[in-house]
């Protein structure tokens, strides 16, 4: 359950829990959250519950709605957000969402009513961006190709994977992982060589200066 705390000049003047009800914000006394400030419109904004989220929408208010200092028309509220309304601050607290506890545990919910009727639901769908933002830091590295068709070029290892060698004959991959770059044999009777020694079937972490041969390609690995 999330909570809204309204304060003015550092003093808490009102607080309430938000769960599954729609909350209207404004100067008019019919709002659930009434803000007595001339800078606030009569019907200023609304907070809509959708699943685990609370979505703040500005109702075309005269002076606008600011969240953490930036003007927003709509925002999926995040734990700790401060909504500025005139001289008042409305703080959104949702520790459960902040710790993300259980939010990866699949749960069943009733779908939005309009959608099922309107859409051909077994159709292909346009991709959505992945929902989790990775907090992982990845290393930065590159290889300098000294022999083969890409001789003389620098290949930046700024993707999750890069392949070397000859497709259909001998192929090796370098995968980017949080703790370094790993060379793996992909396909072919012959295995790649690192500093002249054949690679085993297990991936091997590359060290700066390592020289790798895969099919007719030779390259030197470096960290940036």
């Amino acid at each position, binding site marked *: 359950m999330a909570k809204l705390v309204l304060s003015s000049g550092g003093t808490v003047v009102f607080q309430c829990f938000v769960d599954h009800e729609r909350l209207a914000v404004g100067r008019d006394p019919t709002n659930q959250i009434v803000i007595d400030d001339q800078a606030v419109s009569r019907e200023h904004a609304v907070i809509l519950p959708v699943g685990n989220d609370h979505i703040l929408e500005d109702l075309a208010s005269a002076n606008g709605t600011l969240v953490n200092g930036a003007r927003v028309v709509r925002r*999926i509220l995040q734990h700790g957000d401060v909504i500025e309304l005139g001289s008042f601050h409305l703080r959104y607290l949702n520790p459960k969402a902040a710790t993300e506890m259980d939010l990866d545990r699949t749960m069943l919910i009733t779908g*939005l009513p309009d959608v099922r009727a309107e859409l051909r639901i077994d159709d292909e769908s346009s991709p959505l961006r992945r929902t989790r933002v990775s907090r992982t830091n990845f290393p930065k590295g590159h290889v300098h190709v000294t022999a083969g068709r890409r001789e003389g070029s620098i290949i930046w290892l700024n993707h999750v994977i890069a392949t070397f060698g000859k497709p259909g004959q001998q192929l090796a991959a370098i995968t980017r992982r949080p703790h370094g770059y790993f060379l793996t044999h992909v396909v072919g009777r012959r295995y790649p060589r690192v500093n002249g020694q054949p690679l085993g079937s297990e991936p091997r972490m590359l060290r700066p200066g390592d020289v790798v041969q895969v099919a007719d390609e030779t390259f030197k690995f470096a960290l940036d």
Partner: protein
Amino acid sequence: MARKRIETASATDLGNVRQYNEDSIAIDADLGVVALADGMGGHRAGEVASAMAAEIVLTGLRHRLPEFRSSTSQHSRLLAVEESINQANKAIWDAAQASATRQGMGTTLAMSVFCNGKVVLGHVGDSRIYRLRNGALRLLTRDDSLLRDQVDIGLITAAEVGDSHNRNLVTQALGVAATVPAHVREDDAVPGDLFLLCSDGLNDMVDDSDIELILNSLAANLPLAAQTLVQTAKDNGGYDNISVIVARVRKPRAVGRWLARVFGRLRAAKAA
């Protein structure tokens, strides 16, 4: 000797956070059937539900296979898959009703049945089916999820998806009601096509563009491709269980190709 219709590889992993793996996988490459399920429910009931789903659809299709193979009608192929899903749903629902600790258990399901140049795709919930063809990845399913609904009716934009806490909310699941509205449809399966079935532990953690790059880079080694997908999801956080199945459509038998060539020539001669 029966030649496998598809070449498959799979990987499943607990991830970095969870205590139990509630995903299940079932594969019969000779039959051309792959199924993946992501269970939910307390007291480890999710494991039970997902295992039941994957096994029951596979067993059901083994029984229905003769009619499935001989059938020239698309309708009966779709029906066979639908029936196998309904059977799994009913079994999970009954098991849930029979046990207090399993009340409310359920599971997603994604399955593909390959047959004579066609693939029947079935799914419920937010497990996905992708296809890599000519290097391009395409999502073939629409998630039964609140987030998908929100985006589709314009409640939020695709760019806001990352701000939402609704990624875990599915709107349909197997085993939570006496009947289930499953999505079942047929598509072409061209030799060389790579199908990917995955639980949301993959696509929540790894961008589609990275999934595409990994599949393209490692298409020559499917087990390594499956492992690398799972590894990448873990490297990016691994907040959920991660399961993937990759299935490549094989070229038809040599005799089939020979027949096709002969008939192709006959047809050409006729036309001339």
